[in-house]
């Protein structure tokens, strides 16, 4: 069997992917249903220009040369070196409860520390989970939050998904260290469609970190992953992402969580790369007192159109949401912050606060803010603040008189602007994010 599927998308390709994974019948049927939806749905008519994305030209599945292993030494040398350069095993040693590393369409490494496994935490590839004692859970939850009918790229994902992780945290279990999945995309002209399914049971808590990167090619790559998180009663999940896709990447990812009573969902996002991004993590606050916090920074440099934001739906009384979004635009980059706060009639005394700040680093870049509020409850307490600013000469001069060059001063001011996000991340990831900001600031200087 070839290690790549042909370009384009047909039922045969979908059947081939499913057969490679030895999937149960329900999953094959799900894939084929998703494919039908995908073929019937139009491309989005809003947001960034996707006209140069020729999906028929995208390779939907690229298999690495070796099956997934649980010992780092067994990962093929060149792939291992790529991840070594990205600091993945080092981060695992430094303080992660478990690591998954995906190279193109499949996980090449997955490991969870025994202390965490002994707590009853299950963390494995979604393919393995489908054949484990958690197969019922996979069947019950898979693409329930993001159904294929949601949008064209959700349908595409449903048809060709491959790789990703399944996490189950049992009730009242606190996972002391974060779990991490790292997605590396190496094949030119391919798509990556990993699926992350996380279920955190009642009273438990988890921090999950997702890192993404890819080298630059001259042809378009597509990332249409999907993250679904089920936060049960009084549970809490923090999902952190530092994403640095290359400039040829279309990042059309979907992330969604449903939060039951007393539960808490935190999204922490640093988006630096890609040619086009459309990414709006969402939380459905389904139980009394459920809450969501979103802290995100987006940095659009030259040739980047980053359309990002957040969505929250308040379905129950006393639910709260807090959105803190920062964006930077430089060298003609385009940022759009798009948010939706929906409060239904049942969500008595719901509270929501949105703070959206944009920093323009030059006059040729663009920053848009598109907030949307759909409030059907008179007792809701909703607030929104937004501002777009520039770095002032006074700030730069002040730091210059201390001995920093103009570029160093700008970079430090930007770091201050994004500190809200980096202080939410573990040290190594905050350092990585600060490094990405520094690289973005240096580009074209």
């Amino acid at each position: 069997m070839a290690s790549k599927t042909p370009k384009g998308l047909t039922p045969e390709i979908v059947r081939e992917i499913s057969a490679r994974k030895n999937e149960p019948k329900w999953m094959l049927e799900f894939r084929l249903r998703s494919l039908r939806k995908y073929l019937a749905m139009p491309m989005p008519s809003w947001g960034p220009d996707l006209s140069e994305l020729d999906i028929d030209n995208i390779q939907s599945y690229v298999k690495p040369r070796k099956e997934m292993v649980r010992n780092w030494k067994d990962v093929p040398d060149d792939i291992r070196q790529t991840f070594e350069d990205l600091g993945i095993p080092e981060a695992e040693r430094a303080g992660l409860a478990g690591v998954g590393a995906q190279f193109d369409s499949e996980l090449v490494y997955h490991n969870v520390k025994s202390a965490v496994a002994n707590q009853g935490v299950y963390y494995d590839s979604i393919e393995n989970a489908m054949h484990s004692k958690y197969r019922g859970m996979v069947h019950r939850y898979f693409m329930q939050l993001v159904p294929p009918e949601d949008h064209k790229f959700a349908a595409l994902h449903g048809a060709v998904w491959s790789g990703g992780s399944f996490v189950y945290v049992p009730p009242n279990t606190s996972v002391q260290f974060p779990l991490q999945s790292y997605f590396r995309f190496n094949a030119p002209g391919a798509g990556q469609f990993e699926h992350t399914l996380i279920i955190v049971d009642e009273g438990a808590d988890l921090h999950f970190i997702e890192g993404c990167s890819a080298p630059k090619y001259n042809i378009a790559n597509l990332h249409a992953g999907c993250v679904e998180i089920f936060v049960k009663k009084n549970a809490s999940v923090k999902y952190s992402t530092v994403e640095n896709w290359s400039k040829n990447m279309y990042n059309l990812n979907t992330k969604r969580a449903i939060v039951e009573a007393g539960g808490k969902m935190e999204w922490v996002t640093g988006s630096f790369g890609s040619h086009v991004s459309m990414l709006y993590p969402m939380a459905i606050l389904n139980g009394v007192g459920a809450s969501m916090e979103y802290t995100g920074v987006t940095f659009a440099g030259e040739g980047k159109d980053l359309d990002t934001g957040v969505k929250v739906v308040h379905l129950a009384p006393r639910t709260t949401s807090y959105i803190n979004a920062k964006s930077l635009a430089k060298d003609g980059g385009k940022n759009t912050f798009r948010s939706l706060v929906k409060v239904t009639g049942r969500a008595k005394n719901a509270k929501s606060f949105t703070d959206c700040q944009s920093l323009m680093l030059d006059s040729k870049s663009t920053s848009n803010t598109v907030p949307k509020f759909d409030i059907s409850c008179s007792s809701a307490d909703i607030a929104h603040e937004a501002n777009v600013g520039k770095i002032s000469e006074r700030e730069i001069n002040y730091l210059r008189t201390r001995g920093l060059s103009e570029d160093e001063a700008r970079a430090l001011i930007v770091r201050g602007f994004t500190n809200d996000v980096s202080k939410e991340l573990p040290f190594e990831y905050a350092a990585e994010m600060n490094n990405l900001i520094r690289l973005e600031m240096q580009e074209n200087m």
Partner: protein
Amino acid sequence: MSKLLIAKNLHASTADKELLHGIDLRIDKGETVVVVGPNGAGKSTLARSLMGVSDFDYSGSISFAGKDVAKLPCEERAKLGMFLSYQDPVAIPGLPVGEMLRSTIEAHGKKVRLREFKLTLAKYLEKLDLNPFSGERELNVDFSGGEKKKLEILQMLMLRPQLAILDEIDSGLDVDAARLVSRVIREYQDETNCSLAIVTHNMRILQSLNVDRVYVIRDGLISCVGDVGMLEDIRKHGFKNA
């Protein structure tokens, strides 16, 4: 005493107005020089001109530590050992005081050892009677006027300049705080033999300092140069005789 800074025929102007009309000024090593004058005389403009802050056009010559610095940008002057404390310190939201200082010390080409840096910062925060967590707070954000002035002195202590130009450092400080800051500046000068150029209106900051020379500036010109005795005359009679 050896000469540290010599400014000759210093002019500063905006697009439509000349603010300094040819100032000569000298500061020797270890010396404390005071620049006084009525409001709007050009004191802060002179301070910023010496530092080379790029909000004016300048002409004239400035040498510092034997180097011609007139054409150097302010960051290069800072690296040579000049320091300007601002009359109105600038707030930089999100940027912690400690992070700014660490980055600045590194920009000066010095290696920062984190533990040593934290100990030094804590020592100076205590010396200045600032909250020990001030290093983690955002630079000049939500600090009182007096605390901001103390943060300027904190930066001076951490960056260890040869020449500190202190622009209205005592404004916003209460009596006790002014006494404390004056003493801290004096201790720093005793320790390092640095020079001070103190631009002041109300002169409270001078209480612990030994003033070597006084420049009176009026309408962008030095109208008078004298010794510490001249300050007493100005206190009694204002600037009408100066």
